[in-house]
C-alpha cells in the first residue's frame, strides 16, 4: 500500500467509524428517551391506581416514587416529566400546579352537599409549606387533616415575619380572620376563607365560592387555577347528583307514595337545587337554605316511616 492509498484508507476508516459511532449514540439516546417515556407512564399509572384505590373510601396515603419526578397537575390530566400525559376526567383533584418530588401526599375526602357528591382527591408535597394563622376555628379545621400532611402548620399572626421565604419558596398563608397579609403577597399565596361551612374565599386576588369542609381543604392544598377548575367540576357534579335524586324522588312518588309519604315537595326542592348549581354566580346562602330544607324533608320522610330519598 503506497502513502496515498494509506491516507485514503485512514480517511475512509475515520468517516465510516464516525457514522457507526453516531449511529450508536443516536440509538442510545432514542433508547433512553423511550425508557424514560415508559418510566413516566408507569409513574402516571401508579398515581391512577393509588387515587382509584383511595377514592373508594375516605383514605390517605403517601405515594413514594423511586426517583424525583416533575408532575404537572391540570384539571383533567396529569403530566409526568413534561412527557407522558394521562387523562383522569373522573377525578376531582385539588393540588398545586406542579410538584417535583418523590413523595406525594394523597388524601381522598368525601364531599357532602348535603348528600354524597364525590370523594375529591387532595394532593400535596412537603415542598409546599402551608401556614394557617392560628385561631379556634383554624385549629378545628386542621384537626381533621391526616398527620402525614405535615407541610401544614398553625402559626401565630405575629410569627409570620419569622418565616424565611427564601427557604420556603412555595408558601401559602391561610387565614380565617381579617388579618392584613399584604406584606407577604409577593412571597406567598394568600388565602382568606370565611368562617363557616359555606361562603366566599379569596385566593390572592380572585374570589371563589365554597361549600363544605372538603372545599376548605381543597383551597388549602391547591393552586388557584386547579381550585377554580376542581370547584367547577364539583358544582357540576352536585347538579348531576341532585338531578339523580330528583328523579329518584319522582320514582318513589310513582311507586310508593301514600298520604303520609309524599315526595313532590322534596322533588321540587331537589330540582331547584340542581338548577342552582348550574348558575354562573352561585348564591351560597340560597344553596345552604335549600340544602337544610332538603335534609329536613328527608328526615321527615324517615320519621314517618317512609322510604328516604337519600
Amino acid at each position, binding site marked *: *500500500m*503506497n502513502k496515498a*492509498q494509506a491516507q*485514503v*484508507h485512514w480517511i*475512509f476508516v475515520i468517516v*465510516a467509524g464516525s*457514522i*457507526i459511532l453516531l*449511529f450508536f449514540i443516536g*440509538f442510545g439516546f*432514542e*433508547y433512553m428517551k*423511550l425508557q424514560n*417515556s*415508559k418510566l413516566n*407512564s408507569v409513574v402516571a*399509572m401508579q398515581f*391512577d391506581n393509588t387515587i*382509584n384505590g383511595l*377514592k*373508594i373510601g375516605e383514605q390517605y396515603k403517601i405515594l413514594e416514587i423511586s426517583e424525583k419526578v416533575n408532575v404537572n397537575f391540570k384539571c*383533567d390530566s396529569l403530566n409526568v416529566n413534561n412527557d407522558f400525559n394521562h*387523562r383522569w*376526567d*373522573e377525578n376531582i383533584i385539588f393540588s398545586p400546579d406542579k410538584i417535583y418530588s418523590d413523595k406525594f401526599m394523597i388524601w381522598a375526602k368525601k364531599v*357532602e352537599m*348535603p*348528600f*354524597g*357528591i*364525590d370523594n375529591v382527591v387532595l394532593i400535596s408535597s412537603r415542598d409546599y409549606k402551608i401556614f394557617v394563622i392560628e385561631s379556634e376555628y383554624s385549629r378545628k379545621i386542621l384537626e381533621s387533616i391526616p398527620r402525614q400532611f405535615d407541610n401544614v402548620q398553625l402559626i401565630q399572626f405575629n410569627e409570620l415575619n419569622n418565616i424565611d421565604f427564601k427557604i420556603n419558596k412555595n408558601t401559602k398563608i391561610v387565614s380565617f380572620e381579617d388579618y392584613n397579609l399584604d406584606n407577604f403577597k409577593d412571597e406567598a399565596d394568600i388565602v382568606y376563607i370565611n368562617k363557616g361551612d359555606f361562603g366566599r374565599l379569596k385566593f390572592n386576588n380572585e374570589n371563589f365560592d365554597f361549600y363544605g369542609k372538603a372545599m376548605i381543604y381543597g383551597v388549602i392544598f391547591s393552586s388557584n387555577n386547579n381550585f377554580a377548575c376542581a370547584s367547577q367540576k364539583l358544582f357540576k357534579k352536585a347538579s*348531576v*347528583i341532585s*338531578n*339523580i*335524586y*330528583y*328523579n*329518584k324522588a319522582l*320514582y*318513589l312518588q310513582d*311507586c*310508593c307514595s301514600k298520604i303520609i309519604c309524599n315526595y313532590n315537595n322534596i322533588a321540587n326542592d331537589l330540582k331547584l337545587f340542581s338548577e342552582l348549581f348550574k348558575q354562573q354566580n352561585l348564591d351560597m346562602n340560597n344553596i345552604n337554605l335549600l340544602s337544610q330544607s332538603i*335534609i329536613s324533608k*328527608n*328526615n321527615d320522610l*324517615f320519621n314517618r316511616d317512609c*322510604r*328516604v330519598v*337519600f
Partner: protein
Amino acid sequence: MKKGELQIYESVFVIFFFVVIFMIGFFLFYRFTIEDIKGSNFEFQDYKFKQLIGIIPSMYEVRCSFSLSDTECIDLSKAIAFKKVSKDYFNIFGYKKISIKEVYPEDKNAVVIYEKIPNKYKTRREISSPVAIYDATLDKFKVGKIILEWYY
C-alpha cells in the same frame, strides 16, 4: 481496477452491509419496544376495565344512601335515574355498556344504565360481578350482578 481500489470498494461494501444490518436491528428493536409499550398500555386499559367493576358500585351516582349514611349496594332507582344523564359520562366510561341485573329472588332482565357502542369494533369483552341491589319499590335488598361490556 487496482488492488487498492478493490480493497476500498470491499470495505465500503462491508461497512454498508453492517450499517444496513444495524439499521434493520435498530428498527426491529424500536418496533418491539413500541409494541411492548402498546402492550403495557393495553394491559393498563384492561386493568382499568376490571377496576371499573369495583368502582361503579361505590359511585355516588348509583350507590345506596339511607339518611346520609352510605351503604355498599346499588340503588336501582338511582341507577335508573342515572341512565338519563349517563350520556355525559363518555369521558369516564368510553365505549362500554353497563347493566345491572337482578338474579335473586327473581331472574329479571338487565337494566342498562350506560351504553356507548362504536360503529366498528374488533373485540367485545364482558365481565360481571355480584352486587347487592336495593329495590326502593319493595324496600328490599336483592342479589344482582353488574355486567360490564367493553368494545374496542
